[in-house]
Structure formats: C-alpha cells, structure tokens
C-alpha cells in the first residue's frame, strides 16, 4: 500500500535531485519514508536520497517498490502550482500511480523494477570536510561553466578553493575559513570534476542553505544537503577526472 499527501514543492524537489542522473528510478517505500539509490548510465555519479514520512502531509505505506519514469512525473508536476497539495496513491490492480492535483486525476503507468540494480556505496577515504552556503558555491560554478568543462576543488587547513582553466580564461574562487560554515582537514586535498555533473548536484540547493562537501586526493567527491524542510537528505557521489598524461 502507498497512499500519501505531499506538498507540490517537496515532490518537485525530489524530482530536481533525481532526474539529472537517471530517467527511470526505483523508489523503495517503507512505513518510515521513501528512499532511492541510483547510478547514472555512465557510472560516474550516484545519488542516495532519503525522505522521512514526516516530510509528507499524510503518509500511509507498507514496504514496496515503485518504478517511476522521472521525465513523465516531471511533466505531470508542471501542471501543479507551488502551494498545491498532491495526493499519490498506488493502484495495485492496474500497477499505476494515481496522482491527484486539485480536481485533476492523472494515472501514470509504472516501470518494472525487476531489472533495476541496487548500487553499493563505495567506501571512501575523504579526509577534508567543508560546509558552505549554496550561493557562494553556485557563483563559482556558474563562472567556471563559461571557461571550461571541468574544475579543480582544493581544501587545505585555511582555505577552500575552486579553480577552472580554459584555453584563454581562468576562474578562481578562494574562500578563507572564516567565510565557511565549517572547514576540517588533516591534509591538503585536491580533485578534478566535470562541471556538467557538479553543477547539477548543487542546483537543487537554494540561497543560503548549507552544502556539505567531502573531498580526497584524486578521489570521488561527496556532496550532502537536506531537502523538504530538513526532513529529507541527499548524498551525491561524483567520480573525479584524473589527467595523468
């Protein structure tokens, strides 16, 4: 059974987190909330999402899986306004999700989850931790997009630094410790990442909300933040670029 009421903005937030990485997603439903873990087709990035039952206006569910076409759900959600309360109900007989937006009833066919994998989260040694405001990071990433397709992130004991280099132009964003919400590292860490992926990962966080970044040397980056009024949590992993030659 799955029968919930949720604010349109919460559901849209979930879509913004998941759909940049995968088109089809398997949501695991329990009586305590919903969760999802998926890897993008290129196996470069992973998303891990938890949304507690408290994030919903009403929540009644048993353990089950829902296979959802994210593009389809996104286009349905475009029919709703920002204040709307959405009702989601699983119809067992037809294997469809019934979505109610006001007086509108939209039934959506579900995807078979049988072949969809449960990716494992790799154990990573990431010694550096930085917490900063989304707006600061966003500015640096937006500037980098214009000059290159990848950027370098560096953390040492005093600074967090973002650097991108194109053929003729460069971008540098240096944030000293006192401008950050938290900075913690034992050694200097540096890794390179694709801007395309990285910008999608920080886009769901708005304004002054905090983003947590964990970094290693030529290791994946771990990006964490809360959604749904801190009742949901997102963890992204992104594999680095390593330009050895």
């Amino acid at each position, binding site marked *: 059974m799955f029968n919930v009421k949720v604010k349109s903005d919460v559901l849209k937030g979930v879509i913004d987190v998941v759909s940049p990485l995968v088109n089809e997603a398997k949501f695991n439903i329990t009586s305590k909330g919903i969760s999802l873990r998926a890897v993008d087709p*290129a*196996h470069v*990035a992973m998303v891990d999402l938890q949304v507690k039952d408290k994030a919903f206006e009403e929540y009644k569910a048993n353990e089950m899986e829902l296979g959802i076409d994210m593009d389809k759900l996104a286009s349905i959600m475009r029919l709703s306004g920002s204040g709307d309360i959405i009702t989601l109900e699983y119809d067992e007989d037809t294997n469809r999700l019934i979505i109610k937006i006001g007086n509108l009833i939209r039934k959506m066919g579900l995807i078979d989850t049988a072949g969809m994998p449960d990716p*494992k989260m*790799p154990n990573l040694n990431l010694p550096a931790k930085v917490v900063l405001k989304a707006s600061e990071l966003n500015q640096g990433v937006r500037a980098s997009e214009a000059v290159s397709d990848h950027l370098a992130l560096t953390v040492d004991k005093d600074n967090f630094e973002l650097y991108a280099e194109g053929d003729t132009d460069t971008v540098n964003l240096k944030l000293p410790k006192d401008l950050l919400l938290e900075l913690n590292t034992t050694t200097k860490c540096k890794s390179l990442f694709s801007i395309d992926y990285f910008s999608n990962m920080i886009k769901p966080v708005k304004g002054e909300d905090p983003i947590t970044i964990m970094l290693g040397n030529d*290791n994946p980056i771990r990006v964490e933040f809360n959604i749904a009024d801190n009742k949901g949590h997102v963890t992204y992993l992104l594999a*680095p670029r*390593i330009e050895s030659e």
Partner: protein
Amino acid sequence: MFFSFSNPLAMYLKTRMIFINLLLFYSNKQKQLMPMVKQETYSVCALCRGTKMLCGKTRCPVVVRYHSKNKIQPLIDKNRIDGSSPPSVFIGRIGYPKVAIGPMIPPVMGDTSMIDTPEQWLDKKIEDIVDFRSMLIRGKHIVNIYDVETSDKIVEYTRELALADNSVYAEALFERKPSGRIVFYDEVQPHGPSAPLKKFDITNPKYERHIEKAYYDTDLKANEAIFQLYRDGVQVSKIQRAFSVGAFGIKKLRRFVPTRWSITAVDSTIGETLMKKTRTYPWINEYRIYYHKQFDNHWIILMIPCEWQYELIEAWYPRTTWNPYGRGISIFNSYEFYKGRTTYAEIGGCYYAARLAVNETLNKERRQAAVVVLREAHPGYIMPIGVWNVRESVRQALKQPYQKFDTLDQALIQVSKTMDIPINRWIKNSAILKNSLYQKRLEDFHEN
C-alpha cells in the same frame, strides 16, 4: 596539364586575373571588411594558371569548373529547356518565408535518376559529380512557404516531381536564358545555372508508393512519416526531396522547406529516433576501428564499449574547401553525451549525417557504444559536394571489416598509425576521448 594560350581557357583565365587583381587591390584597402570568399585561392591562381598546382590541391578547381561549364553551355543557351528530370527540385532559402522553388532539369533524355541520387555517387570522381550536377538547370518561382496547396501549376508540378519515383519528362520556359555557373553549397549538392520560370510542364509522374501514402495521410506527423519511410527502405535522398516540398505532416502545418534545411532535418530526425533505441541495447564487447578513404577524405570510426556518446571531429588541411587561407590544419568538433544535445551542432549538417549512419549500424547489431568519427580532409578534396558525402562515406566505412582492440590505448595507437594527424592533437580536440581517458567511474573506487 596542357593547354595552348590561343584557346578559350586562356582567355577565361585572363579575365579571371583582372578580376583577381581588382579584388586584391580592394582587399588591401579594407582588409578587415572583406567578406570571407569561399574556396578561391586568388593570388596563387594567377601565377599558376592551372599548371603548377600552387594552391596545394591535386587538381585545379578553376579548370575543373571551366571544363564542366564548357560542356554544358551550348545545350542551355536558350529560353526553353526540356529534358528528363532525375526527378529533382530545389527550394531556396534566400528571402524566407518567400523563397524560390522549382524543378531542376538537365537538357538530356532517358533515365537520369543517378544525377540526383547521391547514394550512387561513391564510385564517382569529384570531376564527374561536378560534371553531371552542372547539367541541372534550376527553375525559380517565388512562393510563400505556406502555399503548398495552391492552384498554381508550377507549385503543383514541382511537388509532383518531388514525389516521383523515376525520371520524368519536363519542359520549362524561362524568362531569360539560364545564367550563372555551377553553384556550390556546404550542405547541398552543387547544381548548374538558373533562371526565373515562366511556364513549366511535366508528363504524368508515377509516385513512389510509400511516399505517396505518407503524402495523402494528413494526420501523420512529419517526423513519424520520415521514420516510417526510412524503415520501409526508401532512400534518404528521396525522403528529403519530398520533405522539402511539404509533402509530410499534419495538413495545416505543411510548408516548403529550403533544400539545405530539409537535408539536415531528415538526417537529424531519423538519427534521433534510432538513437532512442541505441540507448537501450547492450554495449559492444571490444574497441573497434573502421577505416575508409573517399574523395581524399580519410575516415576513422572509433567505437568504445560504454554508454552512447557521439562526436564528429573534422580536420581540414590548408587549401581545402573550408580552410582556404590557413597555414595549419584546422580542427573542429561537435559532440553529445548520453543525454543528447539541444542546440544545433557547431560544425553543421554533417554532424547529423554521420550520426544517422553510425546509429544505423549500431541498431542493426543491436549494440550500444560511444562513437568518435574522425575525418581528415586532404587537399584532394577540392570542392564542397554536399553533406551526402559524409553520410555515405561513414556508411561505407562501417561496411568494412573492423579491427578489434582490448584497450583504448591500443585502439588509439592504431588511429595514429592510420591517420596523419598525431593522436595527441585528436585527443586535445575531442571531448569524448578526453572523457574516456580521464573521467573515472565509481567502480574504479570500490576496492578502497
């Protein structure tokens, strides 16, 4: 190459020289403002006159054009042309949405279908293609692109011609004698002189039956019609010709589409539909290299076992069509990752033509891969002959047996053995090669 100075070729070259000197004088005066003149190599032509090959090309484009003009001139020196249209039509783009439409008619009889079927040109030489294309006399009739169903006879016959399966006898009366020389475009096949149409008549054509069905189905969307026809085995050039006269789509949305745009529209639509399937197939098991040489273009198609990605990289040698003044080789690329792209490819129509060919092969095998198409255009590629060259050359390359490799490094070594440009330069200009070499995957970190 031999010619005496008393012959008309020398005269032709002499008048050219005056024109060239004028141009040079003018260009010195306002160097910055001079428009880019395509594929001409002015200064050296005067010194060379078709004998010394100073421009670096293996044959002289001036001479090639002159000879083909000379063969055709006596046949078209009149107001009335009749002949067997391959069938062929041309929709201009200048003045859009009011454009010049009309038939293309060669002053010869019989089965001329080869003249407008690029699929059959791979075994021809560039000179031959220029030769038979320059026979096509283009009639021009200005219409609004939305007027596909008027009682205007010229519109009606032009459409009928575009839907025809075989060559059709056509007769055109022009306002004046067709003028101009052979015209080259980057994407469209070249054609001959043109003139405004006064009257135009054709014998009853037999329609291509699949195309006819799509034409009368006024509820069938254009993109669905295109893919259905493609799957039914109709040649891409035939689909494109019918598409350009607004023969497909929901009735009220039908319109004329300039020939240049229609070629890429059809390539892109078919490729897009095939790509959706490609993304669902299992990956290939090895690194593959296909190779083919055509019109002094060297083609390598590199397939990498991973999720669908695509890139076309073109290297133009100095003194080739799109690098006439350069001293070095210029390299351009366009690419898309798994999700596809939403903006028009920087390098234009050939991107979509090659993408169609690549997806065709992957779909046939029911396999997915990342595909990098490398093109070296050497100086023997003396003039642009149209996007079909890209589509058919890549198709041809993919018909050859491929070489297998276990690693990307081995495959790249083979690329550098086959191509002239060093592998580092290819990598530097390639988004997908860089991505494959440098972007790690999450699996790479599972042991830690």
